[in-house]
């Protein structure tokens, strides 16, 4: 197991290297630059801006510097003046030495912040919402799929699948404003927009205070975001369980007189979870790194919009940072899924 994880983590660095290189080349291939505006600045100002952010360097050198700034720690004995170009994710004082590591660069558009600031302040919000949305998705989708499969071709099945199809086909952009209108504006039960926690976060992700109001803010976005995913899970769960309960080993279990409930919980469900676990990995990565539309509708200060706006702004360090972050989380989530396989199916060995 340990060897498996170490091997996968080593592979992750290869993946990240390839992802970063492709992203770097693609984003510089797109026409337009970060400082192009409809009122173009004079040449000397443009030159100064480009020089400040090293955009006047040849591309290969910019890439090497980018990787170097992330990988190589800096050690100083003097307290450094806060700076946007020199902002490190890990910035601690050990003895007399300042140890600073992982500089993902400044944001060109948000001129007062760095990519690390955006990770620190925005990722926790997206992660909190994502985990809650995933909880909604699992809590609604999995039981619904199980019920539909066990009661195939009954009213439960049809109802469940009708809800699932509704969930898949009504996007957040429709469901969100409807929820806001009903519960936020008309009934005034829930705040229409906003998020119930603010930085700094506990352990970097958790809200410092959790009260009923925190959930009031989270309720609508979590439901809106989770419902669509729950539909995917429900359909998958149903199909997978239907297949499993026709397998020979289920027949064997029944033949040896095991109670139906035990047959389902102990034998059928465990196996039927494998495809569900497979989609949960990428789904987790998607939800936790933020979703543009949901954040926009509910006014949530998450990371999702940076995936989109960084590209329209040609905000190169933010593009690189968000893409790499997504890649890291996706790889880790997939490792977790692989580990889950070993539990769900005893035939699977990780080594």
């Amino acid at each position, binding site marked *: 197991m340990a060897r498996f994880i170490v091997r996968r983590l080593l592979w992750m660095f290869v993946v990240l290297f390839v992802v970063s290189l492709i992203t770097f080349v693609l984003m510089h291939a797109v026409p337009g630059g970060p400082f192009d505006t409809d009122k173009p600045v004079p040449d000397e100002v443009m030159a100064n801006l480009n020089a400040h952010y090293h955009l006047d360097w040849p591309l290969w050198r910019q890439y090497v510097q980018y990787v170097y700034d992330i990988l190589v720690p800096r050690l100083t004995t003097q307290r450094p003046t806060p700076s946007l170009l020199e902002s490190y994710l890990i910035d601690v004082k050990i003895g007399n030495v300042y140890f600073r590591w992982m500089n993902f660069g400044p944001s060109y558009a948000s*001129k007062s912040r760095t990519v690390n*600031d955006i990770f620190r302040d925005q990722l926790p919000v997206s992660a909190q919402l994502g985990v809650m949305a995933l909880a909604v998705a699992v809590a609604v989708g999995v039981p619904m799929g199980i019920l539909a499969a066990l009661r195939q071709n009954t009213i439960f099945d049809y109802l469940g699948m009708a809800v699932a199809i509704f969930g898949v086909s009504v996007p957040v952009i429709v469901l969100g404003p409807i929820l806001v209108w009903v519960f936020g504006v008309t009934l005034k039960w829930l705040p229409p927009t906003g998020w119930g926690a*603010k930085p700094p976060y506990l352990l970097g992700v958790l809200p410092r205070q959790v009260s009923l109001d925190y959930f009031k803010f989270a309720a609508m976005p979590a439901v809106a975001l989770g419902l669509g995913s729950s539909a995917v899970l429900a359909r998958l769960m149903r199909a997978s369980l239907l297949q499993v309960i026709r397998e020979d080993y289920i027949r064997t279990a029944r033949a040896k007189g095991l109670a139906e409930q035990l047959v389902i919980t102990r034998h059928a469900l465990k196996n039927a979870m494998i495809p569900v676990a497979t989609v949960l990995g990428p789904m987790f990565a998607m939800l936790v790194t933020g979703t543009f539309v949901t954040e926009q509708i*509910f006014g949530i200060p998450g990371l999702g919009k940076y995936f989109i706006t960084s590209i329209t702004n040609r905000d190169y360090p933010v593009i690189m940072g968000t893409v790499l972050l997504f890649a890291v989380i996706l790889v880790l989530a997939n490792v*977790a899924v692989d580990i889950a396989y070993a539990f769900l199916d005893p035939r699977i060995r990780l080594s």
Partner: protein
Amino acid sequence: MRKAILIMAVLALVAPLAACAAPGETPPVKDTVTAGTPQVVEKFITATPGPTAKPKRPNVVRATFGPGDVPTLDPAVAQDTSSITVVEECFVGLTRLDEVTSELHPGMATRWDVSADGKTYTFHLRKDVPWVKYDGAKKAVVKVQDCKGKDRMVTAYDFEYGIVRAVKPETVSPYAYVLNFAIEGAEEFYTGKSTDPATVGVKALDEWTLEVKFLEPAAYNANIIGLWTAMPAPKWVIEGDDCTEARGERWIEAGFYQTFGPFTLKEWIHDSTLTIVRNPFWPGDEWTPQPKVDEVTFSMLDENPAMAEFEAGNLDATGAPSTDIDRIKADPKLSKLLVIAPILCTYFYGFNTKAPVVNDVRVRRALSMAIDRKALVENVLKGGQEPAQWLARPGLAAAPTMNTHPDLGAKFNPAEAKKLLDEYLKEKNTTADKLDIVLMYNTMTTHQQIAEFVQQQWKNNLGINVKLTSQEWKVFLQTTKGKDTPQIYRMGWCLDYPDANNFTREAVASGGSNNPVDENGNPQGGLMWKNDKFEKLVVSAAREQDPKKRVELYAQAEQILCYEDAAIIPLYWYTRVTVTQPWIKRTFAVGGHERYEHWEVLQDK
């Protein structure tokens, strides 16, 4: 490893739930706003209105910025509406523009003397304004002391430092060029030809007297020195001194940000809300009084969520989304809160005057005259915009107005347009439907709707089938500034400073933003247009001192631009559609930077 992941996942799920189980123990919400501010109470009282006696309304304004974080609060670096709004509330320049009338008033300088040659200005500062900051522990705005414990006052030295800092290359101010063009020695310092800050023509003669040397004896010098880029800056916070730790570029965060204007920064939750609080130490004057409201909170929201918050009673003022305008107008309650105010921007189409077909002035003029701008405003835009006949929007200093020049520029006249086009077609021996014309806009729904309307107008009135095409914004910007500029392209222009010079000259004259030239002065993209008479007119209009003569000169220039040469098609002059709660008394800023010291929360409404 596996355990760690599991524990983290469980923690993330359970920790909130556990706390939720005992709601009696947790204090009321403190999550969005600092505890103890009256605002929190308001938020939840308005959310559940009861029949009991009305509580006193908190003396705060809840406003909005668009989605996304406020880019910066550094005066030298600011260049967008939300940044400038906050900067101008926290700082006051030497001079200050009236946000409604665009008149120039004294700011930190109570008066100024101009030398005989009109280039050297001596500003005399007021002596009673201290630097302040918000102290989170004391929950109050406090004066800032120097290392000897004396209050720091805003002096001419702070102005000198701030202005020189703005043109220092290391500051990378994108707006520095405005100062570079106006102030002696600024450009040399910016480009590194001089490394001595003393060569910049800004000098503090003593604590309260600042001398500024300008390059030109221009009428707008006093305007430029009042811009947010030319604000003073607290050197001791940025660079550090004996008793203050250097904050570098990070001096603009809450708790460190030192200012002196009517408001100062209280809290900035990035990407979410920004709160400014009344500065009790701002002495106030006739034009920039002490604020009547205690706080202003800006929520960074998209238009539609902001409208929902407004209707839920949680916002005091916001822009109305164009998709909601019909509904708001029909709603008996909301329609009373709707105000359409002018904003100093113009929407227009540019011609690449060197491109096939539209290189003939008759075609350009015909196209311009064949658009019914009134119908565009009434049926497509619906926001009370004004049909535009020329570029420099009325309301700018020295710009012609519809009252004084009702027949100036481009007007809807389909018959005349058809006649012009027929003349061209006959000469070229072709027909209207064979003309190959492309209209390009940047990808956005409103631009597409406008382009489709215009396409239809040209089809109906001239029989021309124009092809529509769109590009992503940054790609579009490159295309329309280069040799590949399409025949017709969308553009807009908003003021940098409220003078016709900023529009008629800086936007479209040769070398202007939409009419770039190479180093030899040859057209390089955009309009690809140069008319010597026009160039002479706009230069003499800038130098002319008599306001009435200036208007006439700009009117003549606009007639060339929009009619005789028809290099652009003016479409409409912008308005801003806003809704404001009935208990707010407010002003409407024509430049988009609101001044909340002129706002009031009324208790009896």
